[in-house]
């Protein structure tokens, strides 16, 4: 991020002194974060450090008491979650939240008919929408189960469904909240390849992950949260050498 003359247009997401409390517990304290278009950002931190709370505040699931979030040149404060999704902000949930009574195909159909259609670029016929949905399921390897219900899926497959559903809203920024927990080696490679492919198509990706190998190979930049505070922000190898990060992760 050495671009000295960085303009508002050169940043996709800007978080300014964001704060969130739950009662007396400070979950997020004065967080500042800029994400440029096309970036691949890793967000790490120990359990309970506020990663998911930050995502929830950015996506409108939670309201932040302090600070503000700008996305694509617009102030997001006060907008509901679905309005933010329609602006191009997509997220997958850490614990998969599929629509249990709908088939996988229809799970993916929802963002297409509610988000993409609402942007009103072009109208798709029903058959075209369906083909599109199958395409997203194919990307995550769930095409064969398109007509089944989420209850037939394994935990791993549900994570993939989460990702497919987030991708289907055709976002500018995708936040993948621990999409790889519990996956095998080769499955992690698959998901990483998928995220890289998305990124190459122009989607900015924020990856929240505990699996360091995945974060290190994917991210161009890493942000570290500890106890609701940002303690490091920079190139991966540089962040990993940071004594404060070492302390947070390994203890003293």
């Amino acid at each position, binding site marked *: 991020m050495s671009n000295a003359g960085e303009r508002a247009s050169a940043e996709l997401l800007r978080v300014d002194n964001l704060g969130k409390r739950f009662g007396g517990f400070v979950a997020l304290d004065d967080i500042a974060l800029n994400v440029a278009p096309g970036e691949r950002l890793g967000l790490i931190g120990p359990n309970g450090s506020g990663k998911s709370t930050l995502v929830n505040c950015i996506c409108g699931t939670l309201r932040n008491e302090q600070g503000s979030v700008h996305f694509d040149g617009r102030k997001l404060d006060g907008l*509901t979650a679905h309005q933010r999704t329609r602006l191009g902000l997509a997220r997958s949930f850490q614990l998969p939240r599929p629509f249990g009574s709908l088939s996988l195909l229809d799970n993916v159909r929802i963002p297409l008919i509610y988000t993409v259609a609402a942007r009103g670029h072009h109208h798709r016929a029903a058959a075209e929408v369906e083909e599109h949905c199958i395409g997203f399921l194919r990307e995550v390897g769930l095409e064969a189960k398109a007509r089944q219900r989420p209850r037939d899926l394994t935990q791993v497959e549900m994570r993939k469904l989460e990702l497919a559903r987030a991708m289907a809203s055709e976002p500018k920024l995708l936040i993948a909240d621990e999409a790889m927990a519990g996956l095998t080696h080769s499955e992690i490679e698959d998901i990483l390849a998928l995220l890289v492919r998305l990124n190459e198509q122009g989607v900015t990706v924020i990856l929240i992950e505990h699996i360091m190998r995945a974060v290190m190979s994917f991210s161009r930049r890493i942000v570290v949260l500890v106890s609701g505070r940002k303690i490091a922000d920079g190139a991966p190898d540089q962040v990993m050498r940071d004594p404060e990060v070492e302390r947070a992760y390994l203890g003293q």
Partner: protein
Amino acid sequence: MRTPLFLLISLAIAAAVFAATIALGNDYVFFAGYVVLQYVVLSTAWNILGGYCGYVNFGTAAFFALGAYSTVAVYKLIEADELPHVVPMPVLMLLGGLVSGVIGLGMGYLTLRLRGAFFSIATLALAVVLETLVVNWDFVGGSRGAYIIRPEEIAPLGNYIRYLFLIMLLLTVAALTIARLIERSRLGYGFATIRDDEMAAEAAGVPTLRLKLIATTISGTLMGMAGAPFPYYIGYLQPDSTFALDYAVNSIAMPLIGGTTSWIGPLIGTLLLGSLQQIITVTISSAVNLLIVGALLVAFVIVAPNGIVGLVHTYLQRKPEDFVGRRRVDADAAEPAP
């Protein structure tokens, strides 16, 4: 099946039902049939909010009574004995629907941030509040009730009850068509996501609050429309019986027994339970009614939690698979060789 075709077929069935009821030559059948049809509308309306969106409304009686009392209000206002000749019944129904729909929208605005049991309790409270208002509103009869003089005859049908039956039959067709239309539309998908997971729905771009308001409004409107002709059916309208818990219990039990996820569930449940109730009222006693509902409800919750429609579904799924869907996936997978 496309909606116009569905509507045509439903109208044909309705015409056949009407012709058959006339052929029976006993006006009592109209009286009994009217109640069953009224419950088809009420349970279909309940299901749009309760079944599709998963918000259990205990206030059916309130919306139904609002429709009934708006007719009484018009009756008192115009002071015409033969009101339906001055203001046609369909207009009264639209008016009742409008009043209930507006209250439905208002209730939605106040209560839809509540989930689960809290929402249900709020709807129950609404019924109590409205009943108290009506009891203390002298203009519509207050706790004494109001007498409505039903016209004896209507040309060319004969006995007025036949006309009421016909009108309720048409409202039933309308309600079922609306429910089916919703189910297959973008709105229906949105409702299903609300039922499943509101947080995920929002994240997928579904405007959940707006959709829930649409559901309470449609549901309330239909309930009010079902209530509007009721004063003419009963002749003497009184708060106790109009706000009776029976309406709430029945309109929940019927979709649950039939199946809540599709338009046909409430229809099946009501035809079964409603007819059974009418038969029992005549053969045993009207007090046994609710007992039957209770027993059936317990049985269904244990044996078939997804109702009759759910039972049929499970039975079908044991066979190879939903082949219509299957074929489409296969066609998609088997891309033409280059």
